[in-house]
């Protein structure tokens, strides 16, 4: 079974027809993962819609264009007035009032197969509106995400796939640790309404966690959703080990993918896949090898 088919099957089981691919950093293989799921969905004749939460690469200063996706007719995608290709011409459904550095967000439909740049609004609230509209226009919405934009996931019942790449950290172990911490953060269990708890309305920060640990807090620490948890790496690992962090609206993280080849370095693919699978306890796929990693 192809990787895309497996990821699609995992994501669609019990989901609401939305898949978020969230990378732990740049060049984590998100776009390759999105592409694999997209082609699998197109093969199944699903009406697919695509959006991107990621920050424009141009704004990161590296000047590189956002990777384009080869899209098939019938696909709906989010673009912006300034980046919609003049050719092949698309069907333009709606120009929204949401703004990006590339102009107003718009909804377009592919009429001619070709490479298209998928983009999205810069805010989490905007992304939620965009997803709501895409869901009306499609059977499946795929969102190319970013780790610093997980707030866009708040309240979603969609599936989350975490992408890890060799560009993220210097070693396999470090990357696996970061990926595990992100997954632990996103997979925070639902809270127990019968058990005592402390509700955290705003961000659960390192400072706040430090205070709870110092006070040997044993009650549930309840956040509304995992995107409120502003912890990374070792701080996150320690918090999850020592506190009972829970959330009201859990996310559904279904799989991880690995991209062992990056411009900066390469990881040994099998070792990397195994390490990420162990750290996340998720079905893990190597999108470059076209195989299940572990």
């Amino acid at each position, binding site marked *: *079974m*192809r990787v895309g088919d497996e990821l699609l099957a995992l994501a669609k089981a019990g989901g609401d027809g939305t898949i978020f691919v969230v990378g732990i950093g740049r060049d984590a293989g998100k776009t*390759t993962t999105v*592409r*694999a799921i997209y*082609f699998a969905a197109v093969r199944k004749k699903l009406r697919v819609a695509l959006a991107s939460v990621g920050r424009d690469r141009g704004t990161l200063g590296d000047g590189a264009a956002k990777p384009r996706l080869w899209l098939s007719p019938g696909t709906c995608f989010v673009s912006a*007035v300034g980046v*919609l290709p*003049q*050719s*092949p*011409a*698309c*069907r*333009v*459904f*709606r*120009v929204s009032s949401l703004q990006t550095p590339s102009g*107003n967000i*718009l909804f377009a*439909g592919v*009429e*001619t*197969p*070709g490479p298209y740049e998928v983009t999205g609004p810069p805010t989490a609230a905007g992304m939620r509106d965009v997803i709501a509209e895409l869901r009306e226009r499609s059977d499946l919405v795929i969102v190319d995400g970013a780790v610093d934009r997980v707030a866009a996931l708040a309240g979603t019942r969609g599936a989350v796939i975490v992408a890890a790449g060799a560009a993220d950290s210097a070693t396999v172990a470090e990357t696996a640790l970061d990926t595990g911490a992100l997954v632990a953060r996103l997979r925070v269990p639902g809270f127990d309404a019968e058990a005592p708890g402390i509700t955290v309305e705003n961000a659960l920060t390192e400072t706040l966690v430090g205070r709870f640990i110092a006070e040997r807090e044993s009650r549930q620490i309840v956040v509304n959703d995992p995107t409120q948890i502003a912890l990374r790496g070792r701080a996150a690992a320690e918090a999850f080990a020592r506190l009972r962090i829970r959330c009201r609206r859990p996310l559904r993280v279904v799989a991880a993918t690995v991209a*062992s*080849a990056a411009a900066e370095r*390469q990881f*040994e*693919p*099998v070792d990397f896949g195994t390490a990420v699978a162990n750290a996340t306890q998720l079905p893990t796929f*190597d*999108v*470059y*090898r*076209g195989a299940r990693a572990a």
Partner: protein
Amino acid sequence: MRRSKLLDRPTAELIGFSWLVDAVAPLSAYGERSFSEVTPFLAGDESAARSRARRIVELAAALDPGRLEALRALLRDVPDVAAALAGAAIGDVLSDPAFLELRRFCATLARVDSLVADSGQFEPLCNAAVRGVGDALATGQRDDATSFYLADAFDDGLAVARQRRADAHAEFQALRGREEQRIAAALDREDLGDEFIVMRGELRGDLPAGVHVIREAPTYFLCRAQYDEATVTALQRRDAADRSAAQAEEEVRARLSVVVRERAVEVSAAGAALGELDVLVAAAVYARRHGCTAPDISAEPTLEFEQARFLPLEEQLALAGREFTALDVRLDGAAVLTGPNMGGKSVCLQTCGFVALCCAYGLPVPATRARAGLFDQIAWLGLGRDERIGGLLSSFAREVLALKEVFERAAPRLLLLGDEFARTTTPHEGRALLIALLERLRSRSACAMLATHLGGVAAASGARHFAVRGLRSIPQPSGDERIEQVLATLGASMDYRVAEVGEAESATGDAIALADLLGLDRDFIAAAYRAVAQ
């Protein structure tokens, strides 16, 4: 909606200008542009102001709530095509999103026309240019202005170029697909990505032909499929076909842009008319919602109304489950207003200001009847205008400077609303200042209402005297000291209506009773009553 010189910022806030602006704000970008140009009518414009207010009332009556809401929904969603029209006018080739917005704009204008057609209130918005642009952009479209696609029907050459492109793509895909399938089969995989990893340990023999190694690592190869000569040739043909199709598409856009350019001025005029309609519809919604009537705009600087309401307060009271007591006032010069604390003197002044404000902008008035002149200046003096404590100036000094400004501007038609002017100086001198002010205002034929607790001012100045009727009876403290409860008790006992009275009928003070009601201790209240009796 501009304040212009009609009123300064503190006065505007006190008499509900911002509230009114929000209440009559249009919804579309065109409406906003038109609204931003709205200025108060000035003396001499009485007929125009009267006509505008009547037109709004007629519009509110002619269009039922369902139709008004349908209109509002269209106006809320109408795209702003000003930038596209400006671009077309200077020869830009417009983009497909711009064509969609123009298409939606033209369709919206047609829908607005059909909604108001039988009301007899508006000229049709759709002129020949709007129809021309709408028709041109509808070519080959499969739906009702909910999308735009540069369809083949726009141009035969476009269809041909696209067919060539499709053929070239199919040829290239077939060749590349075959090549990729061959490589994938050789590697025992189902498909290949743009780049793919082959593990050395999983490789039986050499890498298949047509695989280009990007990077070689001890345990794997990072690869990409390499095109053979036939595929490369097909790719070149595909790229050439892409360029031809792109050129054909751009030529169609250029032709459509010329269609827009030739009609840009008239389409812009239709947009401006839409803006004016939006402004009128917003005012009609306001008039209907608040039961407003068209005022009679007088050539004299006068202000009179029956059953008028100060809408910003009425809205607040409604939230608290209470009702506003509508007021009647006839003001044709300078007058004095007296009444108990919390009796509604300030609200009476605000109602005067609000009614005058509506008239100034040709808006219907929240009253059963109103007649007012067009004032050059509406000014608020005294309490509420500047509540700062500290600074270089005392509150009295700030009041005096505000009055000085009013005198220096010498607006020919002035409406002055004074709330306890000179309350912070000695009663003796405060009264003298008020009497002098009333005399000055009368000499200038100004319209004014000055609220005060000081006695004998109206009689001494010869001004008319209005009074809030005040407490019907002294309410007894219920023991429930919650402010909502106290206000409810007070509201039930207070007659907020205003009536013209003689000096002898001036209301007696209710301050100690109110202090009692508000929860001051009984010993203190008793001491106050003893002091009054002495």
